[in-house]
C-alpha cells in the first residue's frame, strides 16, 4: 500500500537513512513497523500532510573510542503515501523498544462489505 522513497538525500552534510519498514495488514487496519534502534522517543517526529506520512528521527551519540563499529549516530527520514480508504484522522503512532509503530485504521465506509448473492 505504500510508495516508499528510499533514495538517500545527498544535499545534507550527514547521510540520511531510510529506515527498514515492515507493513502488516489486519482486518481493521494496516501497521507500519519502522526499525529505529538507539533513537530516543523524543527524537522521533511523525507528520501527516496531503496523504503523505513523514517520519524523521535522529540517533544521537557521543563519539566514543570504539574498537569495532557497525552503526553510528544517524539521521533517518522516510515518507509513505497513504492511499484512499484510510481514516487519516485516526492515524496513531507509538514508539517502543526502538520500533516506531504507525497504525492506519481502515475508514469505516470502505470496510469490505458482504454482497448478498441472490
Amino acid at each position, binding site marked *: 500500500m505504500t510508495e516508499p522513497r528510499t533514495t538517500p538525500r545527498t544535499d545534507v552534510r550527514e547521510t540520511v537513512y531510510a529506515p*527498514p519498514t515492515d507493513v502488516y*495488514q489486519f482486518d481493521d487496519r494496516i501497521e507500519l513497523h519502522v526499525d529505529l534502534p538507539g*533513537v530516543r522517543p523524543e527524537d522521533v517526529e511523525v507528520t501527516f500532510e496531503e496523504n503523505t506520512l513523514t517520519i524523521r528521527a535522529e540517533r544521537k551519540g557521543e563519539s*566514543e573510542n570504539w*574498537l569495532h*563499529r*557497525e552503526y553510528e549516530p544517524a539521521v533517518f527520514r522516510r515518507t509513505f503515501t497513504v492511499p484512499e480508504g484510510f481514516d487519516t484522522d485516526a492515524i496513531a503512532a507509538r514508539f517502543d*523498544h*526502538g520500533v516506531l509503530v504507525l497504525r492506519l485504521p481502515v475508514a469505516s465506509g470502505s470496510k469490505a462489505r458482504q454482497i448478498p448473492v441472490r
Partner: protein
Amino acid sequence: MFPSRIFDIPELRDLDRLFERMLRERPFVQVRAFPPVNVREEPERLVVEAALPGYDPSRIDVKVEEDTLVLSGERRDPEGARVLRRERWSGPFVREIALPFKVDSDHVEARYANGILTIELPKAPEARPRKIQVQVGGGGTEESR
C-alpha cells in the same frame, strides 16, 4: 565501457554483459551479519552494544563460550497479521563476537533500552591492567658504580 567492446572480441561479449548486470543489480543495502554491533574497551571491561529493535529482552540469549560472545534470539510478527512488505530482519538470529581477551563470564551484565542491548563483560583478573610499582633509588644504578 569495457575493453572487450573496443576490440569487440565475441567471446568476451557475454562476460561484458554479465558484468554490467552485476553492477546494475548490486543491492543498495549491503547484506551483513545481524545484529550490527559496536564494541568498546574500557580499562575494566569490554562493552558490546547490539542494535536489536523490538525484541523481547527476556528472549534474547547472551552466552560466553570460551573467548566468544554468542547472541541469539528471535523477533516474531504480530499475531493475526498478514505481511505486505518485509524489509526488516525476520526470524531467528545468531551472532558470534570474538572477544579480544579473557572475561569473567560469571559477572556479565546486559541491559536493554531503546532497542539497543548493551552487554558489559568484566575483564578476567589476568586481563586487567596491573599497576607496576616503580622503584626509586636503591643500589645498582650508574651513580653507585
